[in-house]
C-alpha cells in the first residue's frame, strides 16, 4: 500500500493543474513544495514592508482558457485585470503604441500599420495550428500509435487548411530568426524590436539567435490559448497560485508546503516515492515532477539512478537565461515623459531597436554587465493599488540581458547593475530615482535559488526546436513519461513548454490517466 496514488513535486502552476485534474478523476494526490506559498513562478513576495511584488512572472497572457474553465478558477477567486496595450517608449517621447491589431505613434506609417495587421493575422493562423499540438501529448514521429496518428492527422488537416502561401511562410520562417522575419515585414525600427522582444523574453537569446521565431510562435500560441491579452492578475501573480491551490484542494488534492522534496526514491527498478528535506518519506504509485528536468533528474533522482545515455541527455539539456527582474518600491507614481497617468497601467517596454538588443546581449555572452538594457515594465499598482501602501506605487521590470554569473561576481555586480538600470530608466522617467524607497534586483542565479529553476531559465529549459514538441525535454523522456519507470514530468520542461500556461500539467494528467498508470 502506498501513501498516495501520485506525489507531485512542486506546487507551481503546472504541478497544481496536474494535481487538480488527477484529483478530479478521483486519484489520491499530494503536492509537495519547499516554498511556503503555492504557485511557483505565479507567486507574490513582500520584498519590502507593504509592497507585495509578483516576484517571478509579472504578466499573464498565456493561461489556457480551457483549464481556467475546467478548474473553475474564477470560483476559486481568480480575477484578471484589463488587457494591456504595449507602449514602446521612445527617447523623444513620441511613443509607439501596439493595441490589438493596431499600431500608432512614433511616426509609424500606413504601410507598416497594414503590415502589422497582416502579420498579426498570419501569426494567429500559425498559433491556431500549433494549438492542436499544444493541447495534445506530442506525437512521436516513429513508433506511432493511434493517438499520435490522430494528432498528426488533425495537424495535417489544419496544415492543409492554411493557404499555400501561409504554409510556405511557416516552413520558411520557423527555423530562422526573428530579426530576419521582422526586416521582411516592417521598416519601423521600434515596431520591429517591440515585436522581437516577445521572441526573447525569459531567454538568453537575441533577435538574431536561431530559434527565436519558434519562441515567438510559442508565445503567440500561448496568447491564442489564453484569449485574455496581456493582463495582470488582481492581487498579484500569487493570487493565481492561490486560486490554483484552492482549486486543487477543492478537488481533493493534499498540499504540503514549506518542506522541499530532497530526493526521488527508487526501489529496485522503479520510482516509489520521495524523501523530504525533513527526512520524512512519502510513498506513491508514481511520482510526477513539475520541477525542471535538470533538477528532477540530476538533483532529485541522481545520475547513478538512470542509464548513462539518459544522464548524458540531461547533462546536454540547455537551460540558460539572460533575464533578470527589477523591483522598485516607489513613494509616488512616477512620471514617464509623454505618458498619461492612465497609460502607466499599460505594458511599457524599452527596446529602441533590434540592433540595440543585440548590442545589449553581447556583454552577457562573455559574463559581463551591459551598459544598456531592454525593459518590460509593469506598474501594477495603477490598476491594483492594494499591492502597495496607500498612495505609493511599485514598478517591476523584466530586464534583458543579465549574465548568470558575471566575472566580477554579484556582490560587486548587483549595486553596479542596479545603478545602471535606474540611470537608464531615468532617461524615460525623469525623477524616478528620487521616488525609490526600496529596490531589489533578482538575477538569473537568484531565480535558480528561489524558484529552483536551473540556470534561472523561466521555461524550465530553453525553447528551441531541438528541445520542443516530441523532443521535449529530450528523446526517451517525452510524452510526460520518462525513461525511469514510475517517474513522470508535468512542468514547463515537458511539452508544450514554458510560460504561465498550464498545459504541461493538464496534458500530463490526461496522459497518466489514459495510460492507466494509476
Amino acid at each position: 500500500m502506498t501513501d498516495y496514488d501520485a506525489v507531485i513535486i512542486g506546487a507551481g502552476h503546472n504541478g497544481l493543474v496536474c494535481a487538480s485534474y488527477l484529483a478530479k478523476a478521483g486519484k489520491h494526490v499530494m503536492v509537495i513544495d519547499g516554498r511556503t506559498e503555492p504557485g511557483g513562478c505565479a507567486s507574490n513576495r513582500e520584498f519590502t514592508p507593504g509592497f507585495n511584488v509578483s516576484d517571478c512572472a509579472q504578466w499573464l497572457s498565456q493561461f489556457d482558457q480551457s483549464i481556467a474553465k475546467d478548474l473553475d478558477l474564477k470560483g476559486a477567486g481568480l480575477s484578471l485585470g484589463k488587457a494591456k496595450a504595449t507602449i514602446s517608449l521612445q527617447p523623444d517621447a513620441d511613443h509607439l503604441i501596439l493595441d490589438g491589431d493596431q499600431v500608432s505613434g512614433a511616426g509609424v506609417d500606413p504601410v507598416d500599420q497594414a503590415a502589422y495587421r497582416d502579420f498579426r493575422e498570419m501569426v494567429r493562423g500559425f498559433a491556431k495550428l500549433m494549438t492542436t499540438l499544444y493541447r495534445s501529448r506530442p506525437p512521436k514521429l516513429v513508433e506511432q500509435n493511434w493517438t499520435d496518428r490522430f494528432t498528426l492527422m488533425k495537424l495535417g488537416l489544419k496544415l492543409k487548411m492554411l493557404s499555400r502561401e501561409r504554409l510556405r511562410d511557416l516552413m520558411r520562417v520557423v527555423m530562422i530568426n526573428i530579426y530576419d522575419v521582422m526586416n521582411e515585414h516592417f521598416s519601423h525600427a521600434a515596431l520591429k524590436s517591440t515585436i522581437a522582444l516577445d521572441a526573447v523574453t525569459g531567454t538568453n537569446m537575441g533577435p538574431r539567435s536561431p530559434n527565436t521565431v519558434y519562441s515567438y510562435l510559442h508565445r503567440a500560441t500561448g496568447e491564442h490559448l489564453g484569449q485574455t491579452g496581456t493582463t495582470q492578475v488582481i492581487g498579484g501573480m500569487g493570487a493565481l497560485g492561490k486560486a490554483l491551490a484552492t482549486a486543487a484542494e477543492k478537488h481533493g488534492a493534499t498540499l504540503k508546503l514549506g518542506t522541499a522534496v530532497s530526493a526521488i526514491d527508487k526501489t529496485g527498478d522503479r520510482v516509489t516515492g520521495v524523501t523530504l528535506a525533513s527526512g520524512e518519506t512519502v510513498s506513491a504509485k508514481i511520482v510526477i515532477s513539475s520541477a525542471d528536468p535538470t533538477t528532477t533528474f540530476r538533483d532529485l533522482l541522481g545520475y547513478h539512478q538512470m542509464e548513462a545515455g539518459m544522464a548524458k541527455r540531461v547533462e546536454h539539456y540547455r537551460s540558460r537565461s539572460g533575464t533578470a527582474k527589477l523591483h522598485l518600491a516607489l513613494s509616488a507614481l512616477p512620471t514617464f515623459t509623454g505618458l498619461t497617468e492612465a497609460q502607466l497601467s499599460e505594458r511599457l517596454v524599452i527596446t529602441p531597436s533590434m540592433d540595440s538588443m543585440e548590442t545589449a546581449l553581447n556583454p552577457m555572452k562573455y559574463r559581463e554587465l551591459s551598459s544598456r538594457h531592454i525593459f518590460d515594465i509593469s506598474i501594477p499598482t495603477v490598476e491594483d493599488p492594494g499591492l502597495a501602501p496607500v498612495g505609493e506605487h511599485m514598478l517591476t521590470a523584466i530586464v534583458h540581458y543579465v549574465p548568470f554569473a558575471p566575472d566580477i561576481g554579484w556582490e560587486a555586480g548587483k549595486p553596479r547593475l542596479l545603478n545602471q538600470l535606474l540611470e537608464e530608466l531615468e532617461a524615460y522617467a525623469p525623477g524616478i530615482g528620487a521616488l525609490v524607497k526600496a529596490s531589489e534586483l533578482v538575477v538569473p542565479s537568484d531565480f535558480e535559488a528561489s524558484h529552483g529553476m536551473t540556470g534561472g531559465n523561466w521555461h524550465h529549459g530553453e525553447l528551441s526546436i531541438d528541445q520542443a514538441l516530441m523532443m521535449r525535454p529530450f528523446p526517451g523522456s517525452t510524452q510526460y513519461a520518462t525513461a525511469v519507470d514510475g517517474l513522470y514530468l508535468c512542468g514547463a520542461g515537458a511539452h508544450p513548454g514554458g510560460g504561465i500556461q498550464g498545459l504541461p500539467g493538464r496534458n500530463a494528467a490526461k496522459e497518466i490517466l489514459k495510460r492507466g498508470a494509476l
Partner: protein
Amino acid sequence: MSDVSRDTMLLTTPFHSRVEAMCDLNDWGNWMGYTTPNAYFDVELEYFALRSTTGVLDLSPMNKYRVTGPDAQRYLDRLITRDVSKIGVNRVGYAIWCDDNGQVMDDGTIFRLGEQDYRICSYQRADDWLAWNKLGFDVTIENESEAVVGLAVQGPTSCTVLTLLGCHDLNQLKPFGIAHYTFEGQPLMVSRTGFTGDLGYEVWIPPESAEALWDQLFEVGHDYLIKPIGSYALELARIEAGFLQANVDFMPAEEVVRVGRTRSPFELGLSWLVDFSKPLFNGRSALLKEQANGSRYRFAMLDVEGNKPAEHSFILKGDKQVGTVTSAAWCPTAKANIAYAQIEMPYGAAGDELVAEIYYQRELHWTRLLAPCKVIDAPIFKSPKRWQTPAPPH
C-alpha cells in the same frame, strides 16, 4: 636529405622490434591503429602452434582502462550487463556493454585487481563513453592502454613455458584467475584468459620491459616449440572456439550510422551475460522490452557441409534469404566448416537446417555452391585443458 624521422600513420607496439624481426612474411595489418602482423611465417603452422604447443600474440593494441574509487563496482554494474559483484578479487569476467537502446557497444574483459579497483580491457576505444558513465559516480578512470602492454601466450605448453619464465605455481591458477609476479623488477600480471578456447594465458607488463619479456619468453619456450602468431591464425582459432569479434560479428553500436545495423546481446547469443536481477544497467529497459516483444535476429553457429568456407554467404531457408554470414573458416582441429551467421527470426534455432550460398573462385573461375548447413548449439572446438586446474602438463 637530413635525418628527418618518418612518422607513420600507424603506430607500432613496444614489441615491434621483436615482432618485425620474426615476421618473415612481412605481412602487416592494421589493428585499431597499430601495425600488427597478419602472419609471421605460415598461417596454418602458426595456428597449429596454438593448438599443439604455444602461440604468442602481441595484444598491445587492446585498450585498457583502470577504474578506481569508492563507486568503482557500482559504476561498472551500471556500465555492463552482467553482475560485477560476482567477479572476485584477482578474477576476470567476460562482459559486454550496451547503449540505452540495449545495443552492444563492445565486448571485453573486466579484471578485478582489488576491492574497488578494476581494469576494463576492450577492443574499442571507450574514453568518451566511460567518461559519460562517470556522471553520478565517484570513480577515476585512467586510460592505461599505453602503460600496460600484453602478450597472449596460448596453447597446451603455455603453462610450462610461463613457469620456466618464473611464474611459479602457475598451474594452480584457475581459469579467469589472476596471478602477480615480478619480471626484472617490474610487475608482471598473468591472467588465465584468452581468445583461443584452449589452455592459455595473457601476460601484462609495463612497456619498458616488453622486449626483454619477449626475448626471455622465446628463449625458455624454444624447446616447447613456441611460435609467434598473427591475426589470421588467431581468427581461425577464435572461430573454432566460438568467440565473437567486434567489427566483424557485430558493429559497435556507437560506430553505426545506419538504422537497424546494431545488435542486442540476445541477437548475438549473449543473453547469458545479461542479468536482469540488477535493477539498473545501461540498456536494461530496452532489453526488457526486447525480451517481451522478441528479437529481430538470432546468432547462429553453422556446421556447413563441404570444405569451402562460407565467407560473406547468404543463408537461405528454402528459397528465402534469411541471413548472412559474418565469420567463416575451415577449422583444422575440429575438421569442420564453421560459419557464424545472423539469421532473421524465427529461423536459426539449434538444429535448424539451412543452406549457405557460397561463391568461391579458382583461377578466375567462380563457382556457386549451395551448401546445406545445420545450426549447432555449441562451439565445435572444446578443449578440456581450458578448464582443468591444475593446468595439465603437456
